[in-house]
């Protein structure tokens, strides 16, 4: 690490003041942009939760904490997040082991399929499961009830367990993906030596394999936990109508019912502080339980590990994996597509009730076309801006290393830990005319600003990782040959990290395209996003129409993903 400092000092000596200025400008730009995008909204939340018109006022905050509904929402948020984390982790690790280390057939295909839930917005899954197992009217529920002559519906998805189930089925890939790649990089000789020393299969798994991949498990579990705590879509669709609130849905309800009045937003800010406290507690708890150690024995190069022979368990486990895939990937998709063809919700799913009318209405609606345009605009712009800004921050932190680079890094990563709902409230407070009279409320710009804050850390992480691999000596060489700092940056560093920048773009563009948590609090009459439009249609009771738009959205997502896969493959070849 010292070498970098020395190198940059030498470089600074090469062109003296000029270089210093360029670095200073970049550093200053970083600080100012991060101040505007990240710091101001967060400060506004804290300020408004505790202060009113310049005076300390804890009344709102205390009232919100004492309110019974908010407490039960907090309890539900925790139950759901912990449940989803535990079950999602178990499921992710199990399938990672099965596909990574056993001799189960069709591994490559299944691995690709197990990543699919990661692509889809969980709230579409929630919609599908609600259609099937709504506690009063689900289609499969009704079918089962008649089949077995039951008095009540057999399954009620509109419950805490229902929410956990749907979240698990969309979040387990977080753990799955991490653990699969860790298993691949693991040194197989460690397992072999244990076996030679007489350990049984089960002992090898428990004593060697699992501890080795613990950091990967821990990272994935952390991702499930924070995502679930902050998640709006699934609890909103499955719990809201049945009075099961979580903190994010409660914040939405408070803001919605107060009609955008300042009081409502202040209450939302107070609840946001509660949510941030819960997230922080969860992070600490998680850190205690799964403290991530570093294990050098996981090597960077891949070695071919010995596959565990499943023998008699092969067929049952294969069937289990296929059933899981069918249940969490195919069934919800089929259900949404079927409902989208239905003339009216509630009719039996038979051919004479099918029509294309819902698609006609969807495409004739200004709202829908606007929502697709809005989502494309906001997510492409956010992707491009974050790609450059994230790289800039990463460059400043990695290469320029100014005073306060730690602060810079923390600030840019902060929104990653802050739930989207909370970020939205901060953005409303900051940009609805209270600072320099800038009012972006009800415009697409406020959604864009929120996306920038929310997704900046994504591109910063990928660019950071890429910059770490670009040794300073490359830039130095260019400089020695007489290139200016700008030239060395443009001709050497940027081309080298371009693939990372592009993948950073897609890492932002794809989730922003299907996003609902942030924009549900920010949309105005003309600025519904695709996610918000689907949610509103469903909320207004137009379920087949919502399903039709959801099908269109899924189509868009599949097309975009295919393009991304193609592009990134090409890039690898270069």
């Amino acid at each position, binding site marked *: 690490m010292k070498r970098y400092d020395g190198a940059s000092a030498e470089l600074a000596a090469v062109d003296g003041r000029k270089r210093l200025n360029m670095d200073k400008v970049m550093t200053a730009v970083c600080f100012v942009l991060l101040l505007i995008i990240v710091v101001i909204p967060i400060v506004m939340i804290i300020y408004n939760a505790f202060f009113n018109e310049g005076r300390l006022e804890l009344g709102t905050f205390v009232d919100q904490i004492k309110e019974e509904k908010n407490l039960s929402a907090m309890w539900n948020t925790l139950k759901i997040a912990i449940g989803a984390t535990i079950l999602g982790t178990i499921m992710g690790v199990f399938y990672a082991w099965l596909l990574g280390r056993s001799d189960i057939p069709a591994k490559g295909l299944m691995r690709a399929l197990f990543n699919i839930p990661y692509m889809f917005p969980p709230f579409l899954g929630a919609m599908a499961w609600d259609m099937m197992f709504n506690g009063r009217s689900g289609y499969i529920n009704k079918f089962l009830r008649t089949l077995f002559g039951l008095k009540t519906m057999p399954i009620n998805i509109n419950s805490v367990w229902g929410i956990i189930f749907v979240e698990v089925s969309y979040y387990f890939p977080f753990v799955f993906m991490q653990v699969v790649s860790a298993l691949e990089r693991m040194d197989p000789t460690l397992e072999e030596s244990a076996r030679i020393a007489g350990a049984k299969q089960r002992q090898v798994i428990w004593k060697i394999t699992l501890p080795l991949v613990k950091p990967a498990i821990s990272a994935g579990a952390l991702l499930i936990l924070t995502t679930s705590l902050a998640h709006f879509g699934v609890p909103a669709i499955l719990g809201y109508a049945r009075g099961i609130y979580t903190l994010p849905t409660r914040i939405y309800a408070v803001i919605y019912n107060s009609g955008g009045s300042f009081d409502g937003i202040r209450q939302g800010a107070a609840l946001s502080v509660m949510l941030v406290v819960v997230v922080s507690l969860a992070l600490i708890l998680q850190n205690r339980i799964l403290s991530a150690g570093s294990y050098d024995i996981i090597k960077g190069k891949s070695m071919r590990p010995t596959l565990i022979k499943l023998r008699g368990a092969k067929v049952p486990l294969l069937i289990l994996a296929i059933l899981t895939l069918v249940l969490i990937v195919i069934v919800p998709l089929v259900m949404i597509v079927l409902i989208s063809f239905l003339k009216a919700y*509630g009719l039996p799913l038979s051919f004479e009730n099918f029509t294309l009318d819902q698609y006609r209405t969807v495409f004739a609606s200004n709202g829908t076309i606007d929502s697709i345009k809005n989502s494309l605009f906001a997510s492409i712009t956010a992707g491009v801006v974050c790609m450059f800004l994230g790289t800039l921050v990463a460059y400043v932190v990695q290469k320029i290393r100014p005073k306060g680079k730690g602060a810079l890094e923390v600030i840019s990563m902060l929104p990653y830990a802050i739930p989207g709902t909370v970020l939205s409230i901060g953005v409303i407070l900051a940009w609805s005319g209270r600072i320099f009279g800038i009012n972006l409320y009800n415009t697409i710009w406020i959604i864009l600003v929120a996306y920038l804050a929310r997704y900046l850390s994504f591109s910063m992480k990928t660019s950071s990782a890429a910059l770490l691999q670009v040794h300073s000596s490359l830039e130095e060489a260019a400089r020695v040959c007489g290139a200016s700092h700008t030239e060395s940056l443009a001709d050497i560093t940027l081309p080298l990290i371009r693939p990372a920048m592009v993948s950073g773009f897609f890492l932002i563009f794809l989730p922003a395209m299907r996003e609902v948590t942030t924009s549900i609090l920010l949309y105005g009459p003309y600025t519904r996003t695709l996610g918000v439009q689907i949610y509103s249609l469903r*909320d207004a009771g137009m379920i087949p129409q919502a399903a039709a738009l959801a099908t269109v959205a899924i189509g868009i997502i599949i097309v975009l993903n295919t393009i991304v896969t193609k592009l990134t493959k090409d890039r690898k070849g270069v």
Partner: protein
Amino acid sequence: MKKVIAFLVALMLVMSLSASLAEPSGKVMLYSSMQEAQLQAIEQAFEAKYPTVDMEYYYAGGGKLVTKMTTEAKDGGQIASDVVWLGDPSDYESFKANGWLEPYVSPETEHIAKEYMDPEGYYTAGRLVTMGIAWNVGLVDEADAPKTWNDLLDPKWFNQIIMTDPSQASTTKYWMAAMMQSEKYGEAYFQALKDNGVELESGTTATHNRVADASYMVGICLDYVSANLMAQGSPMNFHYTTDDVITMTSPIALIKGCANEDNGKLLMDFILSKEGQEVLVANNLVSVRDDVEMQVDTSAIASVNMAVDYNDLGANLQSYLDKFNHIFDK
């Protein structure tokens, strides 16, 4: 000189003539709580008649739209619409008091009964909406379906009735307030409904769909939404109550200071015209005009209408809503 004057006069004549002949152009914005399919039908018919005017609409539940207008009008702001068309007439009394409306009496109102209009010309009924009872045809026989509001208190419907949350939908809010106001029903009636396990849904169309998808046997529902869903094939049916029918006039009004006032008037004229009202009827709505043919017999409904005291509604709406929310523990 004469020639010049003559030329100028001619020029002015031509200009004024062309100005008066000039087709209306530009945009017009409508806020409405009607169903989107119906708004699309109106948009198509209006734009077919005035191809140079671009009509836009913003669709949301009544409660949400009032909230939205409140936000927009806050601190002297301008409401971003030209015309507003919601379900509940009592909302318009408060709009009027807030100074949001521009008086406009359309020439088309000669065919509209005077009691459907604001005496000061701030708003005019755009359609008639009546609350009644809907049921799922797979679960309930027509003969058994509740016929009066009190039939809903029968224990056989325990936990099987759905209604819309009155704070979310202006039509249900009006119905609730009218029932609260009545001596025959009042607070006790809603307590009895709650005791019989009535549940709330957040939007009008959602309520109807809960009846259609057999979540509930019976719903407190609107005539036009039911008719619309039934036309699409929803397995539900609807009838008016045999007494104490509550009808709303669903007023339409021009927004004060709106960006496209002329086009706003044009849109109001169109909606209130025979042609416009026929589009409504074709889309299962009930016309306010006396010269439009339709299946619903409005005079028969009017004969069993419950008297509603508008002044009391205007003054006590919030307290009725608070009482309702208290009973339903919201």
